[in-house]
């Protein structure tokens, strides 16, 4: 393993110090437990939007802290959900009378730890609600598994819920919007290589040189099947098909298409894949009205991409377009 690190145990904390140094105008970092907080938090009268999860998925979630998106992010150890006391620290640093919405990805550890934190916050008379995002179509949502995972759709959900909170929506309204987004966003991911977790020191799984894991989650853990490597046209068609047929998205739908790099796939391949996906969606009569392309929810240095489709309406489009100022996502109206 070759990485630009010191002691594997210090990777997250040292990285957060760098994040704070680079973006002091946007956010600040509290240590022990580690929490990334909006520079101007707590914002009076505003619903706090909080998310978190294992580290190693940067810029998720710390890179999305700032005006128009998250009030706080709770980074756990690499690929390990944060502990309830860390979530509670994020709630304390950002939450007032307007309450807080916790955005939780559907992974067993995240759900359990955020659930416990929510109970602790309720005991302090803070109004905290949670939504669980489960946009991954690779996994059958059955009672016999932990259910669909939260993957790329998390980024879009954080942006839209954050914009709603920023414009002054109530906790009820922000929560309802979040549930609406969760209902109409779907994703699929593929891996070409495995990531190496610093404290493990070897790749998370074994994948042959000519193999692709189809339907991965954000830790590289598998979903549907292992396939032979194939040209981008065929691979992207397989991905678009899986996403479109799930909701299903139909002719005339307006969508946001998010093409994400899992860390090591370069932009040349990412744009190539995005172009194919846009063409395939146009062929189906699905209108791509907004786009996001880049490494936004990654798995360390894993090669691979994910595709996410969100069905848009006027309100969601307006919230997507609303100003945002974070380390990783920044635009004006």
């Amino acid at each position, binding site marked *: 393993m070759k990485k630009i690190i010191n002691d594997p145990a210090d990777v997250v904390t040292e990285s957060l110090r760098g994040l704070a140094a680079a973006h002091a105008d946007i956010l600040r970092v509290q240590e022990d437990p580690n929490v990334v907080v909006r520079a101007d938090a707590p914002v009076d009268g505003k619903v706090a939007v909080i998310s978190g999860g294992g580290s190693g998925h940067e810029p998720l979630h710390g890179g999305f802290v700032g005006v128009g998106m998250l009030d706080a992010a709770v980074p756990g150890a690499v690929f390990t959900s944060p*502990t309830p006391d860390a979530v509670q620290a994020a709630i304390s640093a950002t939450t007032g009378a307007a309450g807080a919405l916790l955005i939780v990805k559907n992974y*067993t*550890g995240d759900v359990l730890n955020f659930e416990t934190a929510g109970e602790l916050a309720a005991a302090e008379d803070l109004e905290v609600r949670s939504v669980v995002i489960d946009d991954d179509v690779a996994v059958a949502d059955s009672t016999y598994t932990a259910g669909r995972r939260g993957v790329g759709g998390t980024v879009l959900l954080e942006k839209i819920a954050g914009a709603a909170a920023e414009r002054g929506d109530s906790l009820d309204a922000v929560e309802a919007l979040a549930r609406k987004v969760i209902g109409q966003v779907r994703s699929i991911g593929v891996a070409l290589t495995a990531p190496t977790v610093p404290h493990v020191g070897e790749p998370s799984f074994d994948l042959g040189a000519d193999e692709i894991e189809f339907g991965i989650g954000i830790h590289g853990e598998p979903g549907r099947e292992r396939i032979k490597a194939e040209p981008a046209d065929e691979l992207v068609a397989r991905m678009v098909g899986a996403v479109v047929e799930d909701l299903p998205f139909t002719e005339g739908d307006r969508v946001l298409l998010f093409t994400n790099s899992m860390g090591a796939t370069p932009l040349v391949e990412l744009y190539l894949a995005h172009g194919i996906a846009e063409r395939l969606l146009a062929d189906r009569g699905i209108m791509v009205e907004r786009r996001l392309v880049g490494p936004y929810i990654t798995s360390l240095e894993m090669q691979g991409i994910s595709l996410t489709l969100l069905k848009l309406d006027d309100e969601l489009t307006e919230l997507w377009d609303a100003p945002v100022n974070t380390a990783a996502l920044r635009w004006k109206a």
Partner: protein
Amino acid sequence: MGCTPEGVANALRGAAAVIAEHRAELIELDRAIGDGDHGENMNRGFQAVVAALDSALPETPGGVLKLAATTLISKVGGAAGPLYGTAFLRASTVVSNQPELGAAEVVAALRAGLEGVRARGKAVEGDKTMVDALLPAVAAAEKAGGGDVAAVLSAAAEGAATGAESTVDLVARKGRASYLGERSAGHLDPGARSTSLLLAAFAEAAR
């Protein structure tokens, strides 16, 4: 061993040593069907438990178990933190403020721990999780309940070892491994293995 605060603390120290010794093995088991962090997370948590016990030893066995619970919840993360944390928390509650535990209390604590894990993780027997080690452990402990603490814990450890071994053939239906479906069969469940290691360490300390 008397099941005093010192005795329970020593058992936890022993457990921490065993987890440290098997850290790489747990990582490897988890790498096969999860994401490879179980050994690291458990080791971080139990080292923190030892540090907490070194700085202040609670006055009752229940207090020691509670300190272990809150430390595990705040240091482990992942799914293992809340699950093991809940197990120790429920175990501590059921023995309340008694100064020393007998065999019956130890059995009750094990049963409470199992129920806590089941409530928090919603896993049932055969899901390929730590429940598959804990359930036979508690059954064996209840059977040996007429004996002393050492006999109870040693029965529990044997039950857990057999239960953990049984997870090899199972297809995972909970947690990270469930995404592998049929491909999860043929691998020992890391959570069941760590449960078995912990109970073996407790049994060893009671001997």
